[in-house]
């Protein structure tokens, strides 16, 4: 039994080890006996996850005339896409394109500002760069809700009220602290020797940033892209308070307005929730591994 422990792979990448014989042996250890309690628990959670999703999909396919009679767990008798048409014709594409604009711009701002900052925080050890880093460390604790009144004042003074920029700028600012933490964490892993080698070749800091730091920090950068995009995509408070008209309205606020607009038309309301989730779900299907890896990075592990 004791030699069982010898060929233990220490790599952090889980995929290759799965195919190796010692991986097989390990697997047998983990699951030597079925664990009925864990199995039961996971089935209970499966039900808790799936029932609302099922109820949402099924109700969104129910005609409005039948919606108030039945319970949402019954499958729809004659499914219809009418609710989806209603939502798509209520300005959904406009909401979607606004949200995409906000998400892309926020990611751009965060990358352009945070990558050089993290680069400086890791590469130089002056008092100023340390102070800059600590400013963002403290910034993690600032809840967006707490500054929304003075931001409202600033946005109004800047004459940005009721524009997409009014949503973009604060959203980008509040995505920065975690982004800086993730980026400095990644940049710290790049060996100083590589920089010295490039410095001996006479490379400028700018060239090092583009030819060494950014290529080697791809993991951290993609984490930041995903994190900032999700923040922008799901943001609610800033759009709620800094915009008013239809023109700069984003998806989350559109959903909120559908609650009063569709009132008792709950099937249409649920169709709008389904539609709002489809873009992220599509990204999930295509980039599951990157998304999950990125989010584990946000977890700080």
């Amino acid at each position: 039994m004791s030699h069982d422990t010898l060929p233990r792979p220490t790599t952090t990448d889980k995929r290759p080890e799965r195919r190796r014989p010692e991986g097989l042996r390990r697997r047998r250890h983990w699951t030597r006996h079925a664990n009925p309690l864990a199995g039961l628990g996971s089935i209970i959670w499966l039900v808790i996850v799936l029932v609302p999703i099922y109820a949402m999909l099924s109700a969104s396919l129910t005609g409005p005339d039948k919606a108030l009679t039945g319970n949402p767990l019954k499958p729809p008798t004659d499914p219809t896409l009418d609710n989806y048409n209603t939502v798509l014709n209520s300005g959904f594409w406009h909401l979607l394109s606004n949200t995409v604009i906000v998400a892309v711009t926020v990611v751009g701002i965060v990358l352009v500002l945070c990558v050089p900052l993290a680069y400086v925080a890791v590469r130089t050890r002056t008092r100023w760069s340390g102070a800059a880093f600590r400013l963002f460390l403290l910034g993690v604790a600032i809840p967006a809700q707490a500054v929304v009144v003075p931001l409202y004042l600033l946005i109004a003074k800047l004459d940005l009220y009721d524009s997409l920029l009014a949503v973009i700028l604060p959203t980008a600012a509040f995505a920065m602290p975690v982004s800086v933490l993730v980026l400095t964490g990644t940049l710290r892993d790049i060996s100083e020797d590589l920089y010295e080698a490039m410095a001996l070749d006479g490379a400028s800091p700018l060239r090092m940033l583009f030819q060494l730091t950014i290529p080697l920090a791809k993991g951290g950068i993609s984490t930041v892209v995903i994190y900032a995009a999700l923040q922008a995509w799901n943001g609610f408070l800033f759009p709620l308070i800094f915009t008013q008209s239809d023109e700069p309205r984003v998806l989350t606020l559109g959903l909120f307005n559908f609650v009063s607009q569709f009132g008792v038309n709950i099937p249409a309301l649920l169709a709008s929730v389904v539609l709002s989730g489809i873009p992220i779900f599509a990204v999930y299907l295509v980039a599951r591994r990157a998304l999950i890896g990125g989010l584990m990075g946000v977890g700080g592990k």
Partner: protein
Amino acid sequence: MSSTVTSGGERVQRGKVRAGRPGAVWALPAVLFFTFFAVVPMALAFYLSFTKWDGLGDPKPVGLANWQKLLDDPRLTQSLTLTVLLTAASWAFQTVVALLLGVWAAGRQRNRAVLSAIFFVPFLLSSTAISVLFYALLDPNFGIIQKDTLGSSSGAFLAIVFVGGWQFIPFHTLIYQGGARQIPPVLYQAAAIDGAGRYRQFFSITLPQLRHTITTSTVLIVVGSLTYFETVLILTKGGPGTDTAILPYLMYEAGFKTYDFGYASAIASALVLAATGLSLILIRLTGFGGMRSTREGM
């Protein structure tokens, strides 16, 4: 920008130690941007809390009136208690479920991978979408439970805890899954040789080994519980009565419903004080802010 580049470039010739180091000026755009949109507003919130301002014209200084009003407001105590209860209940619910699911999902059979992928789906919807979904599913006429869940004080509270858990448990499960995969299997093998059963192994190996993961997840739950604003606004509007009016919701009502921005700023300042205090304590206790590499465990 270009002048910084040359000044940095000149340094290359000066000596090996400072060779090719970027100037601190590179950090300036980020610092200025963040200062303007996050730090200045925080200071401004404190200033506004000593003024009376209805959103039009200029704020007028009124001294401590708003703070006096806040301390006399019975909703403040209720709101603080509620925030603490909500955080505690969310922590208990999310930690227990996510820890068990995460440890279970760290195993390696095929059905676990498929189930983990399904379990993750709620996290893909925004808080707003999830709140709207449960608003519909908890509707007394339409919903799954044909009862006025949100109309009762305890029902509304439990609904918020449940909806928050439904959304965030997938994320915390992911964190625990990553943590559990890093526990060296040799520990379990040694315990098995010593005759420890599955549950003994869980309590004597898995839990202690996951302590850092538990603190990370706890910090995120505690800080995140302040963001239940959407859920409260959409599901309960703070009701019934004021029974689910958490601090951010009180602030929103004072500011953007009754246009008493001075008072709203006092509530916001209290929120900043509470959040900063809490975060500093958590950072001190857990070393969460330490400059650890984020790459380990990915």
